[in-house]
Structures are given as structure tokens and as C-alpha cells.
């Protein structure tokens, strides 16, 4: 299976992308999409990307739910800060977070989560020390952010990309 269809997740993604773009479930498009997905998978073997193994669908759904809720909540928080109705003295700064996560896809997912939630920004990841640096717009407590990233996101990402 892996030889016939390398990077099966990426292939499935390409297939879905093709059908969505063409907005069709006609047999012709399914066939064409399948061919494109297979060609894409084979092309990726040339790049020699590390293989991604994703497990625990429930963890993925749980994480997606958390992230959507956090995005809406932090949008509102940043909205209030910009409009000047946050009502307290604000301080922004950097927070160092030691991570256990080493999987490149897991880290990429974490980068998407952190930049997608307004108010937090991915600054740097020191791969040698395994320390992530983020910038927080409304920094009240460093420790609180460490707990949020580690407890809320990293734990689930470790489960997904175990």
C-alpha cells in the first residue's frame, strides 16, 4: 500500500482539493483527481519528506474544537485591546516554552495554531534545546502561557503525532 500510494494522507488531501475546486463528484473528476493525487504522492517521494503518521481521530477533533474556540476568544480579546477597551495596563513580551514535541509536522501544526490565535506569535524554535519562543500581546503571567501551550496543545499534538 505504501509503495503504491506513498504519502497517503497528502494524496487524500490532493484528491479532496481537486473535488472541492471542481465542485463535482462526477466519475470523470473522481478518476482525474485520483490520478493527480497519485502523481502528487509519487512526486513527493522525490523530495524525501519524512513520513507523517497521524493517529487518534478523537484527539484531532478535540484539538480542532479547542483551537476554533481559542481563535474566536483571542480575536475578541485583541479586538478589545486595539479598540482600547481592555481596561487594564497591558504589557507584551516574550515567553520561553520548553517543548517535548519534536515531530516536524507536529511543530508545523503548533505554528499554525499559535499564529492563528491573534495575540500570540511564533518567534523562534531552538531545535537543539527544544525551546519555543512566542511573543504574547497581552502578557499577564508567563507561567500561564507555558501551561496553555503545553497542556492544551502540545499534549494533544503528542498524541496525534506519536
Amino acid at each position, binding site marked *: 500500500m505504501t509503495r503504491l500510494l506513498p504519502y497517503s494522507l497528502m494524496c487524500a488531501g490532493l484528491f479532496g*482539493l481537486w473535488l*472541492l*475546486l471542481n*465542485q463535482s463528484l462526477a466519475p470523470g473528476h473522481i478518476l482525474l483527481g485520483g490520478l493527480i493525487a497519485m502523481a502528487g504522492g509519487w512526486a513527493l517521494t522525490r523530495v524525501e519528506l519524512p513520513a507523517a503518521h497521524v493517529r487518534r481521530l478523537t484527539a484531532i477533533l478535540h484539538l480542532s474544537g479547542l483551537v476554533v474556540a481559542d*481563535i*474566536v476568544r483571542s*480575536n475578541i480579546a*485583541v*479586538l478589545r*485591546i*486595539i*479598540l482600547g477597551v481592555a481596561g487594564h495596563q497591558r*504589557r*507584551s*513580551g*516574550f*515567553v*520561553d516554552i520548553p517543548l517535548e514535541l519534536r515531530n516536524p509536522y507536529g511543530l*508545523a501544526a503548533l*505554528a*499554525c495554531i*499559535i*499564529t*492563528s*490565535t*491573534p*495575540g*500570540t*506569535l*511564533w*518567534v*523562534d524554535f531552538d531545535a537543539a534545546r527544544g*525551546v519555543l*519562543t512566542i*511573543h504574547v*500581546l497581552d*502578557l499577564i503571567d508567563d507561567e500561564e502561557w507555558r501551561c496553555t501551550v503545553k497542556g492544551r496543545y502540545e499534549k494533544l499534538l503528542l498524541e496525534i503525532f506519536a
Partner: protein
Amino acid sequence: MTETAELPAWVAALTALLLLLGAVVTLVGAVGLLRLRSFYERVHAPTLGTTLGTAAIALASMICFSALEGRPVLHALLIVVFITITTPVSLMILVRAASLRDKAEGKLQAPGADSPA
């Protein structure tokens, strides 16, 4: 504008509401880009537009065209997916360039050193 007449009122209202929400959130993000103090604070602001702003406008598009054509029209979803995947790349490049320069100029010891920038 013959097509809008066929749109049920509640769909039109929902679409308008979501469009307005997305536009307002994006506008506030743009205002934040002007108003916030330091570079690191300013780069936070546009992410309002790339998250909730884009999502609301894409949702409005999906609802409106699904109602007009009487079938699910979901390809606007791809806009949200690709913006979510690509935003971190450009933001990271900007921020790392800034922190590299600040470190070289000695304004910043190292990102993460306990002094607030």
C-alpha cells in the same frame, strides 16, 4: 441584481451579518497595525483579518451561494485552509528578521530573555 431577489430573507440577513462581521474584524486589525506601539505588537493585528475575518467572509460566501444554487458550494473553505497554512510562514519570516536585527543592534538580548521588549 435578479439573483438576490431569489435569496430567502433570512439567508440574505445571515450573509450580510457575516460579511459585516468579517469586514469589521479585518478593519480593526488594520487599525491595530497603525495604532499598536512596537513592531512585535503590530504584527499581531493583521492576524485578526486572516482568522476570524476570512472565516466569516468565506462562511458568508458559502451560505449565499449554497442557497442560490440549491446545493452545497463549499470551495471557499479552501481559502480558509490555505490562509491558515500560509500565514505562519510569512509572519515567522517577518518576526525572525526583526529579532535578528534587534539582536544585532543589541536592543534585544535574545528572544525570551526575561526583559520585555
